[in-house]
């Protein structure tokens, strides 16, 4: 998670479109969460949100709250899906990023804090691209024995 966060801070900004870029941390963890349960969704949402809030200017807590709620929702969607289907997870994470960006921009606007409105369009598109690229890796990551919880009878 730290590595993904560092990539978000140091590499993705150089690939920005109209000063906006996606979040590899949110995208990868969102895809990962769709293959796990609610408990993991809560913890992953909390940790990833705290990392994203760390350097976010003007407010603290917004990313954490939104990540927990959205990841819980994504986990619920993931439970109903058949394994191997790529379209729904990719679109779900994209929509989740769109909702998150919209809520953040609206909240900042209500408090009189200016933000980049192009992010409303760019961030979901960027997330869609990252989701398509990293879907298989996130599935592989969720299958690593250390990561996956295995029930033994």
């Amino acid at each position: 998670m730290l590595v993904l966060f560092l990539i978000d801070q140091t590499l993705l900004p150089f690939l920005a479109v109209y000063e906006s870029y996606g979040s590899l941390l949110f995208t990868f963890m969102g895809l990962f969460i769709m293959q796990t349960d609610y408990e993991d969704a809560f913890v992953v949402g909390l940790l990833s949100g705290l990392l994203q809030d760390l350097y976010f200017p003007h407010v603290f807590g917004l990313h954490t709250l939104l990540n927990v709620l959205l990841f819980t929702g994504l986990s619920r969607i993931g439970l109903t899906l058949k394994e191997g289907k790529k379209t729904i997870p990719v679109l779900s994470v994209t929509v989740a990023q769109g909702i998150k960006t919209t809520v953040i921009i609206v909240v900042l606007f209500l408090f009189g804090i200016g933000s980049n409105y192009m992010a409303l369009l760019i961030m979901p598109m960027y997330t869609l691209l990252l989701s398509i690229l990293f879907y298989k890796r996130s599935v592989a990551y969720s299958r690593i024995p250390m990561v996956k919880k295995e029930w033994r009878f």
Partner: protein
Amino acid sequence: MSKLWQNKLSRRIVILTAVLLTLFGYTVFKDHQMLLESGAGAALNPVQKVVYSANKRLESFIDFFLRYEEVKLENESLLKENIELKANLRNFDSLEAENQRLKEMFAFKNRMDQYDYIGVNVIGKAGGGIITSYIIDKGTEEGLLPGMVIMTEEGIVGQITETAGTWSLVETLSSENISIHVTTLEDNSSSGILDGYVGAGQRQMAKISFLPVDASIKEGDPVVTSGLGRFYPPGFLVGTVTRVEEDRGNLMKTAHVKTAVNFKEARMLYVVLPKSLEDVSY
């Protein structure tokens, strides 16, 4: 409601939401980072600095090859400009010597000497693509405070918005959250607050609003800091006026300004610190 409370996950989410909303309300207008953010940032910054610097060098390297012809033409024009400036410098040397003599004679205090200039490095980008903000590697331990300006040798580029112990967040002049008091070189009556915005094609722009309708500001005028409040020295270049809009109904003008320095291309960055903070409150 009771069903919500019985479920373990729902209970956790409700408690977390309450805690986070409280935290959110507490931090929304604070300009100093909390202990958690400050400490975690201090731990991550060294790695972030290395990776960001490496990527920045790679970007410059690729940019050089993509813009080779442009760089060649720029180099030729800079050589010509250098020759002209050297000739001017010879004339200015004698003027400066006379100026210095007069200053000593009248014990004139140079306002520039009332400020320190601390070199800083950009170690990452913050804001997650929603707010354009940069992380620099110095904070309150070096005396930095929110509201202090960031500059290069060419002019002002931005302002510190939040500080932690060993790092700070900076927003550029084109950010809507930044405002600096400015004036024009020709006429001090054309002064006002400069606010940032992003123009067409994502150009870094700013505007001075609520100028009196009879202000003599016009296209092409250089805009500089006024030094009001003694937060920063006067006379530092901010940008150039690109157009002036008149609102005769409200008897005011708005001057649109193109910023002089592009933050992304800036090399050496400095924070301007007043030597004495007694008369200055950020």
